[in-house]
Structure formats: structure tokens, C-alpha cells
């Protein structure tokens, strides 16, 4: 099968849906060259650097019968648009009693590990998970980003796609034929029987490396949820009931994180709790802004060694 990059795959999803649906509009502060060339400057608009108002514009377009795609670039810039995302995109459908369909796709990159410093590095998805009304994607492979964005582009709701910055140039197999991936369906990246590792974003790759490193000693199951809202709770619970051990890996800060939610999910489910052999563990970013200097940044982020250590630790703990 052909291999393309994550960014190319994402772009293909948009191109395909823009070809099919003339009522799709693209907004971003940077020229989206391929899109502009094919679809023209009417539908592919470069915006002033005014995130709150062009996200609001996307919502107004969507409420007027169009479908809008907004590329905010980095999640830190997305914070400038929080009023429109949190108070409007997330709430208007509900507040208006279901009158308003709001098909808006908001894309932004997340993650750290490239010396971007605190204002260009963050993984804030759990903040958005706490505001009902948004669907939240966290695609980790070229295949997934294309299939999930394709689905987002026919969904009648606001969808946020958090795309790990460091995965943009990563390559993977993507079929030529059209396909869609459903929301709320986790991918099992590796089967295993001793411990379940739920890994988010770029950490899905790092956790897989850790699992491979432990192969032969510890049998690790690696689950990538792929979408956080909806979250494939059943896939996580099924795996933890089988292995009795859970490690959640995410580069977002630990406090009130998606990892916290996943640990709570497993430990508050009676059947799953009864089968736990060790306390669930989280391997997360430390609770500090992301520092610039490489040794500092490395220190605060999860990596393969930290994941291996956490897996070993849950294996050592005595049975409950």
C-alpha cells in the first residue's frame, strides 16, 4: 500500500469532501495552497489573525447552512478563540433546543517535545472534554487522521481535531480508496494479557515502543482511543478486566487530564475494579508549563523509559 504523511492524509480528507460538497468553506490565517488552488479564494479564505472572530464566523456559516473547516494551527492559539468554542460551538445546538445544526470542524495541533516553549506547546484536550457539545478527535496515524476527518466532514456537529504536532510528517499506509472511520472506536495497537496501556496522541507510538521493549517479559496490550468524545469505554474496560492492570500514558499535564478520566472510568466500574490486581497508574506530563531547554523539556514529558518503569511497577505490586 502507498505511504503518505499524516499532514497529507489530513489534507486528502478535506480535498475529497470539498469536492463532494460545494458548501464547505475553509478558514485559516495561513494560505492553504493546495486547497486554494483547487477550490478558489471564495471558499478557502485566508483570515486576519483574529481567532475568536473567525471561529465565530465559522459558527455563523454553519448556522446558515454551510460547513466550515477552521485550522487554528496550534492549540495555544486556539485559546484565543475559547469564547466562541466553549460558549457557542459547544452550546448553541443545545441552548436553541436542537434547532441549529453546527457542522464546524476545528483543527489544531497539540503536544510538546520540539522546544517550542510554553506558549507553543500544550495538550489541552481534557479542558474541552469537560464542555459537553463538542466531539473530540485525537488521531495518531495517517490512516486514522484521514478516516476520522472524513467522518468529521459529514458530521452535523462541532468537532475538534487535536493533531499531535510531531506526527505531522510521520508516514503511514493509507489506501487510495475512500473510507470513513467511526467515532468512539478505539484501536488495539498491540494485543497482550498482563497489562493494559491506554496511550493518547503521540504517546500511542511511544507506548508501543515500550511494549515492544518489554516483549517476552511482560505482555502489554496497547489501546489508542483515537477519539476522546465519544470515548470507547467498552474497549478500555474489556481490556482492563482481562489484564487486571492499567497504565494511562498522556503528555498532557496530569491534573484533571483525560488520563484521570480513564483511570476513574476503570476504577469506578464495579466489575473492572473487582478484577484490578494493582492500582491504576498515570504517566503524564508534569504539572508545569512546558519549558524550553531540551533537558528541562525531556524531564517533564513522558518517554519510553518512564512508560517501561510504570509498566514494571504495576506488575510488581501485590495482587489486590
Amino acid at each position, binding site marked *: 500500500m502507498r505511504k503518505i504523511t499524516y499532514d497529507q492524509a489530513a489534507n486528502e480528507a478535506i480535498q475529497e469532501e470539498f469536492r463532494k460538497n460545494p458548501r464547505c468553506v475553509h478558514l485559516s490565517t495561513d494560505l492553504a495552497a493546495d486547497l486554494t488552488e483547487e477550490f478558489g479564494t471564495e471558499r478557502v479564505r485566508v483570515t486576519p489573525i*483574529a481567532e475568536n472572530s473567525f471561529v465565530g464566523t465559522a459558527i455563523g456559516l454553519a448556522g446558515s447552512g454551510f460547513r466550515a473547516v477552521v485550522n487554528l494551527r496550534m492549540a495555544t492559539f486556539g485559546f484565543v478563540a475559547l469564547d466562541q468554542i466553549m460558549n457557542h460551538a459547544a452550546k448553541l445546538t*443545545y441552548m436553541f433546543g436542537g434547532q441549529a445544526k*453546527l457542522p464546524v470542524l476545528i483543527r489544531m495541533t497539540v503536544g510538546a517535545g520540539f522546544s517550542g516553549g510554553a506558549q507553543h506547546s500544550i495538550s489541552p484536550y481534557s479542558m474541552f472534554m469537560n464542555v459537553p457539545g463538542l466531539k473530540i478527535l485525537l488521531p495518531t496515524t495517517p490512516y486514522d487522521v484521514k478516516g476520522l476527518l472524513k467522518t468529521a466532514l459529514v458530521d452535523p456537529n462541532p468537532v475538534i481535531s487535536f493533531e499531535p504536532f510531531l506526527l505531522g510528517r510521520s508516514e503511514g499506509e493509507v489506501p487510495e480508496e475512500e473510507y470513513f472511520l467511526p467515532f468512539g472506536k478505539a484501536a488495539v495497537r498491540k494485543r497482550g494479557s498482563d497489562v493494559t496501556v491506554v496511550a493518547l496522541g503521540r504517546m500511542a507510538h511511544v507506548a508501543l515502543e515500550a511494549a515492544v521493549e518489554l516483549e517476552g517479559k511482560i505482555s502489554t496490550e496497547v489501546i489508542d482511543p483515537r477519539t476522546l468524545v465519544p470515548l470507547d469505554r467498552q474497549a478500555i474496560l474489556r481490556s482492563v478486566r482481562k489484564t487486571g492492570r492499567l497504565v494511562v500514558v498522556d503528555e498532557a499535564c496530569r491534573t484533571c487530564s483525560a488520563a484521570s478520566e480513564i483511570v476513574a472510568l476503570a476504577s469506578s466500574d464495579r466489575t473492572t475494579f473487582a478484577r484490578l490486581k494493582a492500582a491504576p497508574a498515570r504517566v503524564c506530563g508534569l504539572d508545569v508549563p512546558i519549558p524550553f531547554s531540551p533537558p528541562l523539556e525531556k524531564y517533564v514529558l513522558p518517554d519510553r523509559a518512564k512508560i517501561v518503569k510504570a509498566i514494571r511497577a504495576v506488575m510488581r505490586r501485590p495482587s489486590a
Partner: protein
Amino acid sequence: MQPDDKVLIELYTTMLTIRRFEERLVREVSAGNIPGFVHSYIGQEAIAAGVCRHLRRRDRIVSHHRGHGHCIAKGADLKRMMAEIYGKKTGYCKGKGGSMHIADFSVGMLGADGIVGAGLPISTGAAFAAQLEGKGDIAAVFFGDGACNEGEFHEALNLAGIWKLPLLFVCENNQYGVNTPAAYAMAAGEISRIPKAHNIPARVIFGNDVEEVYRAAGAAVAGIRKGEGPFFLECRTYRWHKHFLSQQLEDLRPAGELEEWKRKCPVAAMEKKLRNRGVLSPAKLRAIDEKIMRQVDAAHDFALSSPYPQPQDALHDVYSS
């Protein structure tokens, strides 16, 4: 564009409908019958009536927390409005919105917005949609003087300016945001200087004279439909009640101001004109009022006799399917 007699009667009827609807709410709120915050539009009726008379059903509007007048003027149904204000299942939002969030997408009313200034960027989206459709439709956005100090206001002006969006900005300058005078809160002094800085033509008008609003909005809308880009109307007016209807809330506006503005009542002024010009006899005027009162009563009866939503309905409409 001078309104003819038929239009004058329509403008008057719209204003009086808003007035009677809002008066009923004042009564019901003070009797403790309505939950939540209700922002009264009394005193500002001429703006909604005069602007919306130029809008077609396909034109879209975005409104703000003080939005009942815009709903009525755009053709929303009084019954479903009242039911929403009472939190009933038959309301426009099935009881999930309330007074501050009434919307009727079927008449192009994209909703009242409770975040000051936030409707402005949504209206640039509605105007962008109209531009893409290319059928001569436009959008209009209503907002207060207080909203003009929000970043979203300035961003929306800029966006409308660079894209030449078919958008009518209607600033309802009632001179206060709660108790804070616009004169204190705004360095520009004159609001209309701000759109001009974005190359958007602007006019300041007396917002309590519905004929003046009608004429100014007519000229603005005609230009916008022709593709001349956005236009800004600053309408000077005054709110008669407290910021929202409440016994506790303080009104710190200077004594005497309200009495002065009550003498400039937009509804009474129009009634006088209609009478003096012989457009409507006292009997006809009374008949219009009685008809409106019956409609408001019917809306209120409808709201009271409508069921509340089921508690578990709270779980529906988070997402569209």
C-alpha cells in the same frame, strides 16, 4: 425612503406588540412567575421595528441578551416565545434557552446571545454565507454600546470590512452597560468613529424615531444588497427598566434621565403622528391595541397551559443527529 401609510401602520403595530409583550413580562417577573434573567426592550422598540421592516425572511439576524424585540420584529411567534420564557416544552428551545436565548431559525433569527459582543462574529459568518450564496440576502446584527468595547466587536468590523460582507451593524446605544456609562467606558468617544476607522460607513441616528430608523436602515440595506459592503447604524436610545427585571438590582443612572427619555417614547411619538396625520383614527388605534393585547394574552395562556419538559429531556439535543 419615506414610509407610506401602510408601512407606518406596520411599524407602529410591531412596536406596540413588543411594548405589550414586554409590559406583560414586567408584570409576571415582578409577581415572581418567571425564572432567570429577563432583559426588557422597553424604550428601544423603534430600532428592531425600523430595521427588520427592511429584512426578508431569508435575511438572517443575530441578537443579544435584550433580544425579544428583534424576535418579534423578525416574525417569531409570540406563543412559542412566551412558552420559552416560561421554560416550557412548547417554547422555541424546548425550555433549554429561556429569555436570553430565543432563536427561530425558520425566520432567519439565529438567536439571542448572552455573551456580550459574541454575536458579532457569528453575524459575520451569516453575512459570509449570504455572500457565498450570491442571492442578494444580507445579515444584520444587533448589539449594545457595551459590546463595542469587546474585542469581538473590533474583529468583526475588520473582517466585514476586508471581505465587504453584506452585513448591517445595528448598535443600540442606550448609553449604559448595566450602570457603566458608555461615555466613561469608551476612549473613542463617538462609537461611530470606530467603524469608520475600519472603512465602514456609519451614521448616528435618533433611535426612538421609527421613521428615522426606517429611512436610515432602508438606505443602508439597499446599499448592502447592491454589494457595497457593510454599513453601521448607531441608534441613540434609552432603556426604561433596570438592566434586567429584578427587585434587587440597583439602577444607578442619574435621576431625571429616565423621565426625560420617557417623554421621547418611541411608541407614543408614533401614535401621536398617526393620529395627527389622520392615518389612524382613535378608534382604529384602540382596535390595534386590543388585538395585540389579545395576542399577548393568548401567548401567555399558551405558555401557562403548556407542559414543562420531562426532566430527562435535559439529556437531549447536546448533539444533532
